[in-house]
């Protein structure tokens, strides 16, 4: 019995899977743009079906479960392979397929000259499929397959240009860091199965909702889930992989490491919001981890010189905002920021890709400048995204960031203060990036491809997605206009139909307080932008190296030495232990033991082979002796 609705639900992940399999299998046969167009068409179909599902959503059935087959059925364990269609998964599906489609289109242009373009699109489609599995799964285990799937695709795509060893290391680092978080997720699943006897979201939330607030089991489970989320969403302390992940092609950075995959952790927390709502202790931790990460990312972003690194740390910082929102129970605010961030951060990355493309691979912003006149579309869209992320009204970033800030203020003014400071830093590093790239004079020496006279604008196939995203970045705020502006919190109302936890949020602030908070953050940000203009607006010279800077600046420029700290804390002791285990365990115990066993067997064989004389009578005699011995043993029980 498959209803039309079920069929539509199955089609959404089926298209990208089909694309991954077909393009992957025929990657050597597909010439030119065929793979790109095929992959784009399939993800676009997926988006169309998602949109149909969204438009024809029945109000009478807020949560629809589509069971594909009975997946695991062992003893008391009963786990179906099923998809859950509700407001939350639908919203994520729209983001994943919608942004995914735009980035696929962009990739056709960006990856045009790459010899492995078909492989790229196969992996990109596989990623879309995994991500859809992640958001659509009706239980933790199906989500977990998607969770691991996106991790795998992330690894593959970071190391897409595998001939450069550093890129492979970056992929490996992302994979290992994510595994640390995954341990938390697996343990959380085991704990929940132990407690509830099921992993279905609906059942877990129903049973969990009846437990007391602060139940130690719920607190442990949510902490473990959050550990998983920190790994995937690059929060402290598991964030160092995300900046390195920029080794991948730029569309990958836009899709996986900005718009979709890294928001999986937020999705997971929102999905389990009922449980998190019952664990105030965990929520506090989430809030402060989010705030600390927002500040960390924003500070490090200040002095980065690689255009993609700046954006990477910016992503880390914005993810921190989202988690801060979750920490104060403002789930819809978090999801709203996920949405708007997907718009403007994808736009920023694609714009950066366009700039890199224009300069023939140059990524150092110190060697850019003055591109405003040359790459007009890129400049305009990049400007829109920068203004949006800085949080200037009425662009989308303002509304989502304001929602988070207001919710945080109601809960903890200190956290609010830190987040506003981080917002100022955000404005600083983003406008520094904008000014250094597009304003002033061109400072590069540009090793451009042959036949290219100077920086040039990207083809239409790349600029059209930029324009679409720019429009979305501008109007995205309309999704969730708060009451204070005469809006109706549409997204919040929509998402509230998905789970009990969403909607019961945000201590209401008085209108005057809200106006004041908005005015404060906006004016501070505007001030910062003006300051940034005075510093970088007309810059023609290069920045100095970190060595010339004062201590704090040098520390920040070196990313708070976090990588060095991890190397010192984990890598060094591990290498030391490994070296000594090799010296003692391997060379003194394992090798003598194995080699000794072999030598003993050889010696015994050398000696015993003399028995094989070839004399039949002797064999018979041996047999008889054996039988007699066996008889004696049997009869006398020796």
């Amino acid at each position: 019995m498959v209803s039309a609705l079920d069929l539509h639900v199955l089609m959404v992940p089926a298209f990208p899977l089909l694309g991954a399999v077909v393009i992957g299998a025929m990657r050597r046969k597909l010439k030119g743009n065929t793979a790109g167009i095929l992959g784009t068409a399939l993800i676009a179909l997926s988006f169309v079906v998602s949109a149909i599902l969204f438009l024809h959503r029945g109000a009478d059935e807020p949560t629809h479960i589509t069971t594909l087959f009975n997946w695991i059925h062992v003893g008391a364990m009963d786990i179906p392979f099923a998809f859950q269609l509700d407001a939350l998964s639908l919203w994520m599906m729209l983001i994943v397929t919608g942004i995914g489609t735009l980035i696929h289109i962009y990739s056709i242009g960006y990856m045009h000259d790459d010899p492995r373009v078909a492989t790229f699109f196969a992996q990109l489609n596989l990623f879309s499929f995994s991500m859809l599995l992640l958001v659509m799964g009706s239980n933790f285990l199906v989500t977990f397959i998607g969770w691991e799937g996106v991790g795998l695709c992330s690894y593959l795509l970071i190391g897409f240009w595998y001939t450069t060893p550093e890129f492979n290391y970056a992929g490996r680092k992302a994979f290992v860091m994510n595994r640390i978080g995954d341990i938390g997720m697996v343990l959380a699943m085991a704990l929940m199965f132990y407690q509830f006897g099921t992993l279905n979201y609906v059942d877990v939330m129903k049973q969990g909702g009846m437990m007391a607030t602060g139940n130690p089991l719920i607190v442990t489970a949510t902490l473990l889930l959050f550990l998983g989320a920190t790994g995937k969403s690059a929060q402290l302390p598991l964030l160092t992989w995300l900046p390195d992940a920029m080794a991948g092609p730029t569309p990958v950075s836009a899709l996986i490491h900005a718009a979709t995959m890294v928001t999986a952790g937020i999705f997971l927390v929102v999905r389990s919001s009922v449980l998190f709502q019952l664990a105030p202790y965990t929520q506090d931790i989430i809030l402060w981890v989010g705030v600390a990460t927002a500040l960390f990312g924003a500070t490090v972003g200040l002095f980065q010189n690689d255009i993609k690194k700046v954006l990477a740390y910016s992503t880390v910082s914005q993810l921190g905002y989202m988690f801060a929102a979750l920490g104060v129970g403002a789930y819809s605010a978090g999801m709203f920021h996920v949405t708007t961030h997907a718009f403007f951060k994808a736009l920023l990355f694609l714009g950066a890709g366009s700039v890199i493309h224009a300069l023939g691979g140059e990524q150092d912003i110190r060697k850019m400048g003055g591109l405003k006149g040359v790459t007009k579309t890129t400049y305009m869209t990049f400007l829109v995204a920068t203004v949006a992320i800085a949080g200037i009204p009425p662009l989308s970033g303002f509304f989502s960031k304001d929602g988070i800030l207001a919710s945080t203020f109601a809960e903890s003014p200190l956290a609010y203060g830190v987040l506003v400071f981080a917002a100022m830093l955000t404005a600083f590093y983003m406008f520094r990036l904008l000014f250094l790239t597009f304003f002033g004079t061109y400072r590069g020496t540009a090793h451009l491809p042959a036949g290219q006279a100077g920086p040039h604008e990207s083809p239409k196939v790349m600029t059209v997605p930029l324009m679409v995203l720019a429009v979305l970045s501008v109007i995205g705020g309309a999704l969730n206009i708060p009451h204070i502006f005469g809006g109706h919190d549409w997204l919040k109302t929509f998402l509230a139909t998905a789970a009990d936890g969403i909607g019961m949020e945000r201590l209401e602030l008085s209108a005057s307080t809200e106006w004041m908070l908005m005015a404060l953050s906006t004016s501070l940000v505007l001030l910062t932008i003006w300051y940034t203009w005075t510093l970088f607006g007309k810059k023609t010279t290069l920045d100095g190296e970190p060595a010339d800077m004062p201590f704090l600046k040098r520390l920040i420029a070196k990313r708070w030495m976090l990588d060095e700290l991890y190397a010192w804390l984990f890598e060094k002791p591990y290498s030391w232990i490994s070296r000594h285990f090799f010296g003692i365990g391997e060379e003194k115990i394992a090798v003598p033991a194995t080699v000794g066993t072999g030598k003993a067997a050889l010696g015994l064989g050398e000696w015993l082979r003399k028995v094989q004389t070839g004399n039949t009578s002797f064999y018979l005699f041996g047999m008889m002796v054996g039988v007699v011995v066996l008889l004696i043993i049997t009869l006398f029980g020796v």
Partner: protein
Amino acid sequence: MMENVMTAIRLVPLDHYLILSFLLFSIGMVGALVRRNIIIVIMCLELMLNSVNLLLVAFSAYHSDPGGQIMVFFIMLVAAAEVTVGLAILVLLKRNTNGVDMNQLNRLKW
């Protein structure tokens, strides 16, 4: 008819069957161990098998259990097959070494 055979077997005490069987088996075994002529060795093997047969039949009669006699048929069958193989080896040995000395078989080692 069958009863008569059983009765006839029971006329001789069981000990005598045991002793005879033991002697036949020992002769067979010693012969198989010490003789080098492969024909003799095969004959000795048959002797050993048949001593066991004798014992099985005797016990079968004394215990009124036909199972032992059925086992005898199996052993005879196996003995026939075994002798077929053994004689084939004998023929080949004769052809290759122009003799029937079983120790010549140690050449197979190399």
